[in-house]
């Protein structure tokens, strides 16, 4: 972060021609900084509500990266499903369980040190792998990505419209995604039914007051009937609004 004023100063003092700026790279840098910065903020924050907010920003910036990579359909899906759906679900979870002692549960210091060591080691490993990738150069200027929505939709029903031309070697032919699409759809259905079953409001097994009274002793007089009625009314209101 301390480099930014330096870069800005260099941009002012050194005559960097505007034509030398690669705008694609500039916006990539912007989105990448937001995505990585807020991902680290998610780790650093203790308050779970703030973590949810930082996660929204990080995932939104990742959608921006998808747009920059030419995957505009995927970026739109990321915004709609992740930012619009999954995170709203998470925020609801946060709100339903947000009691003062639970909002900020801190791990012990030993856990933090251990997690930090593991994280730094893993990051070093992954960065080494990332930099050892053969330098893929950007294609010549003027390449425009085809709109991806139609090929994706067709591939999901098993037809590849992005196939290599006729006469290409058979090794280049790629199958469609009919079967994974069906599996994922069934999986989603089962999962949603299961989630609704797990999270449904459970009715507690509280014996109704009239049954309790009947089991204790049979009602003998009208006055007792009236008292049972009152008791039943009271316990009914408890049942309706008494869930903690």
């Amino acid at each position, binding site marked *: 972060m301390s480099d930014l004023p330096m870069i800005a100063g260099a941009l002012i003092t050194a005559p960097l021609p505007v034509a030398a700026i690669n705008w694609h790279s500039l916006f990539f840098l912007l989105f990448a900084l937001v995505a990585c910065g807020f991902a680290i903020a998610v780790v650093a924050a203790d308050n779970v509500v703030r973590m949810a907010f930082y996660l929204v920003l990080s995932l939104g910036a990742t959608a921006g990266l998808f747009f920059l990579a030419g995957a505009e359909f995927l970026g739109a899906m990321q915004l709609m499903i992740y930012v619009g759906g999954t995170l709203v679900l998470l925020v609801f979870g946060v709100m339903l*369980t947000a009691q003062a002692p639970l909002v900020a549960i801190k791990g012990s210091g030993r856990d933090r040190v251990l997690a930090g060591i593991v994280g730094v080691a893993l990051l070093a490993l992954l960065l080494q792998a990332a930099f050892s990738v053969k330098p893929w150069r950007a294609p010549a200027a003027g390449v425009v990505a085809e709109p991806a929505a139609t090929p994706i939709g067709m591939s999901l029903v098993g037809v590849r419209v992005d196939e290599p031309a006729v006469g290409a070697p058979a090794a280049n032919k*790629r199958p469609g995604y009919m079967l994974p699409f069906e599996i994922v759809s069934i999986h989603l259905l089962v999962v949603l039914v299961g989630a609704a079953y797990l*999270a449904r409001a459970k009715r507690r097994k509280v014996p109704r007051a009239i049954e309790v009274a009947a089991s204790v002793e049979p009602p003998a007089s009208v006055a007792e009937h009236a008292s049972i009625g009152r008791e039943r009314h009271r316990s009914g209101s408890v049942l309706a609004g008494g869930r903690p």
Partner: protein
Amino acid sequence: MNIVVASAVPLIGLITEPVSVTHYLVVGAILFVSGVVCMAMKRNALGVLMGIELVLNGANVNFVAFASPYLQGEGSRSLGLDGQVFALFVILLAAAEAAVALAITLNFYNNHATVDVDRADDLKG
């Protein structure tokens, strides 16, 4: 001119050079590691869930980078549509996973009145 500026500020190349696939891989690695550390460190069950989302997003960034038509290398085929479709499946499965995990968390909260994962030791022998 560019060399002078580049020597003045080492990071200026990030703005003047075109983006390569390595840039995306670095972003994906940082997201992934953030998610792993988040999963390992947080004691709130919802924080662990957020770590999982970050990990899946890091994987998605890599898929998209290798599928991008703008980052194609010479002599190596990009993943093309396959990468985008796989990333789409990952997003869908992440949504399903979040729904189930949230239902489990709410159930746990109803039974134990806490979302601390360290307290979920009923099955410990």
